[in-house]
């Protein structure tokens, strides 16, 4: 009798039609870039080119801001909130209608498993637009410092959750009456361009959303543009610093969602099987390309051995491979550059004396892949305990007392997320109140909701996205 094994279960690509080449989306139209430079976006799972997009130059960025300013002054800021909200509701509905297509497109361009784009990214994208749609005509009740839009928002988003980060940026900006110039990440522009089509489909007035594709130079031009009244950036702490420096002395408002090195604290009384799940979700969700990943496991020494044994057994079950296979848990690393960074840091981990472990896990021959990896024997001094790896690599440290756990958790310039696992309510609250992090997941990890504010302490950035708090960044 044949043993029951999963057969390949690939989601069909047929639902998506990718054009060979994309223009910029400015003033409600796809327009040819003035810049000649083009970028090829590849499928990280097989390195095959998916499409070519424009790398917007200064003149293109100029055009986008002119359109956004015009739309702000002539249409959008004057539109009653209730009407703005209806556009956002329309967008949310269209996203739901096209969710399958967008999920496949996101998996192709990003490398993340279809299971996640289908069950996490897309539902959250639609929910985010629904949530902020309802705020558009209630801004006076939000408890924010101001209730007036700022003008044109310059938004630069990363490649780890391309469409979700777009939603986090665009939905509150539009709900509050701002217009947008958005630059998606160089390696994941396709769902943003699909979103441009959705804006057209929704009948959104031209210029309210403008999407300029490109790499670092385009991003710099977008955030440096004098017409940008507000800058919202999600990405690396290093680029965040440069932007913060660049806006010094101006009136521009700035919010930054940057890196993290989240601690996931497991006390000895934790619900151990759920803690193991939480650790796995914390670091291997989205291949660890998550700024709020629980990349440092802090486990109480008395249960460390048992927990690690269970963790290794669990990790051995993770299915790595074709992102479009519905049973894939771990997809491809987004780019060759990111893969090189992960390799460099894991090599540093080995050479600094930590012990790496990965399950027996054959990697596909083509594409960018990295196996789930756990480092034990890690100390606070190791690079893998201090630097953000942004990959499926977990560093394990131990602690003896709650004080030590909190001290180690906070011993980082970052402060985005943290986790705490205990069945004792008072210990959970004690720990949560001492963690210097913007999001504390207790007895869970990596759950998100449009109503829940998200953002960091310290060098993880400032400002909040999501919830009532997320309106603050777009009102003056």
């Amino acid at each position, binding site marked *: 009798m044949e043993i029951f094994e999963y057969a390949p279960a690939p989601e069909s690509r047929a639902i998506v039609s990718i054009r060979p080449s994309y223009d910029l989306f400015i003033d409600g139209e796809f327009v040819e870039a003035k810049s000649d430079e083009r970028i090829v976006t590849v499928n990280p799972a097989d390195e095959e080119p998916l499409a070519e997009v424009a790398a917007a130059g200064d003149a293109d960025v100029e055009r986008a801001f002119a359109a956004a300013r015009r739309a702000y002054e002539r249409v959008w800021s004057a539109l009653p909130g209730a009407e703005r909200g209806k556009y956002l509701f329309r967008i949310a509905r269209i996203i739901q209608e096209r969710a399958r297509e967008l999920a496949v497109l996101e998996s192709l361009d990003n490398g993340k498993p279809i299971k996640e784009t289908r069950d996490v990214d897309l539902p959250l994208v639609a929910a985010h637009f629904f949530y902020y749609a309802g705020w558009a005509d209630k801004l006076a009740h939000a408890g924010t*410092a101001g209730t007036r839009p700022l003008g044109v928002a310059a938004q630069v988003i990363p490649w780890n959750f391309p469409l979700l980060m777009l939603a986090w940026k665009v939905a509150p900006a539009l709900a509050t009456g701002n217009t947008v110039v958005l630059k998606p990440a160089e390696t994941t522009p396709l769902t943003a361009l699909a979103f441009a089509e959705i804006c057209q489909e929704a009948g959104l007035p031209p210029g309210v959303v403008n999407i300029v594709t490109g790499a670092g130079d385009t991003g710099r031009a977008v955030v440096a543009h004098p017409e940008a009244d507000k800058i919202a950036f999600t990405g690396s*702490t290093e680029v965040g610093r440069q932007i913060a420096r660049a806006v010094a002395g101006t009136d521009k408002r700035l919010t930054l969602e940057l890196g993290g090195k989240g601690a996931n604290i497991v006390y000895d009384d934790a619900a151990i099987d759920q803690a193991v799940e939480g650790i796995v979700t914390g670091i291997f969700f989205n291949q660890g390309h998550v700024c709020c990943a629980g990349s440092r496991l802090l486990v109480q020494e008395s249960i460390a051995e048992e927990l690690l044994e269970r963790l290794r057994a669990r990790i051995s079950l993770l299915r790595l491979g074709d992102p479009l296979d519905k049973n894939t848990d771990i997809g491809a690393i987004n780019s060759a550059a990111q893969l090189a960074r992960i390799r460099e840091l894991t090599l540093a981990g080995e050479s600094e004396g930590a012990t790496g472990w990965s399950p027996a896990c054959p990697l596909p021959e083509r594409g960018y892949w990295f196996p789930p990896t756990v480092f034990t024997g890690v100390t606070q001094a190791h690079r893998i305990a201090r630097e953000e790896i942004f990959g499926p690599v977990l560093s394990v440290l131990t602690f003896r007392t709650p004080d030590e756990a909190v001290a180690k958790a906070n011993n980082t310039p970052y402060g985005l997320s943290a986790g705490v696992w205990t069945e004792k309510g008072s210990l959970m609250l004690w720990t*949560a109140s001492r963690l*210097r992090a913007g999001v504390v997941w*207790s007895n869970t990890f990596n759950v998100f909701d449009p109503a*829940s504010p*998200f953002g960091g302490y310290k060098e993880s950035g400032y400002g909040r996205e999501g919830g009532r708090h997320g309106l603050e960044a777009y009102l003056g």
Partner: protein
Amino acid sequence: MADIPPRIAVRRTYKLYVGGAFPRSESGRSYPVTSASGVHLGNAALASRKDVRDAVAAARKAFPGWSGRTAYNRGQILYRVAEMMEGRREQFAAEVAEGVGKAKAHTLVSSAIDRWVYYAGWADKLGQVLGGANPVSGPYFNVSEPEPTGVVGVLAPGGSSLLGLVSVLAPVITSGNTAVLVASERAPLPAVTLAEALATSDLPAGVANVLTGRVAELAAPLAGHADVNALDLTGAGDLATGLEELAATTLKRVLRPGHDDWSDPDPGLSRVRPFLETKTVWHPIGL
């Protein structure tokens, strides 16, 4: 019958306030403070970058304790500060009068004390006004609450030596931050007097640290200090842009200089919010 010689007044030495103590500047320097008309009022300590360092260390040390107190207790302590200020009305008035005249000085002192009381009352309201439960779509308890940012560097306004001073310091510490404040360079004496009031209240050592000296000398080490979490550039003047650039290195929260109207008796949260973080805590709801 011999005349009784007139009593010679005992003058004050104007010192820094760091970690609950009153040191002279580590540098041993001082600078003369004069009134608008040029009368010598005293010598203020001329703090150095090392005094900045010491003050930041004191503020950091005080942060866990101060932020960990109940909001009610912080409010009580800040109210106690106002009581101490009330007892020094005349001294404040005399110092403020050097710039604005006696009648106005008394009004300003009253406003300053009232302003302190205003912010004392905010301490245990912030959590409710700025935080709350978030209705997430799932079986989770999800709550956001404001938390203090940490150590805040404050450049007090140059022109409003007491009311402006109080208006920038009180909102920073009421939420649980600790502060390193650089006083008005030209008129530092009310800041020193305020420090003496703070020292005789129940405010824990290091929660508020007051430096006097040259803003141009002290602001840069404060803005560049990696253990400072936020900056209030109200008194930065032309230095503001450079300081904001320095602050970017460690991504400090920055309150840019604005057009402040210190006379508004209800400034709201405009000076409290910039120095708050939002922490969101999730927990499952289940059996």
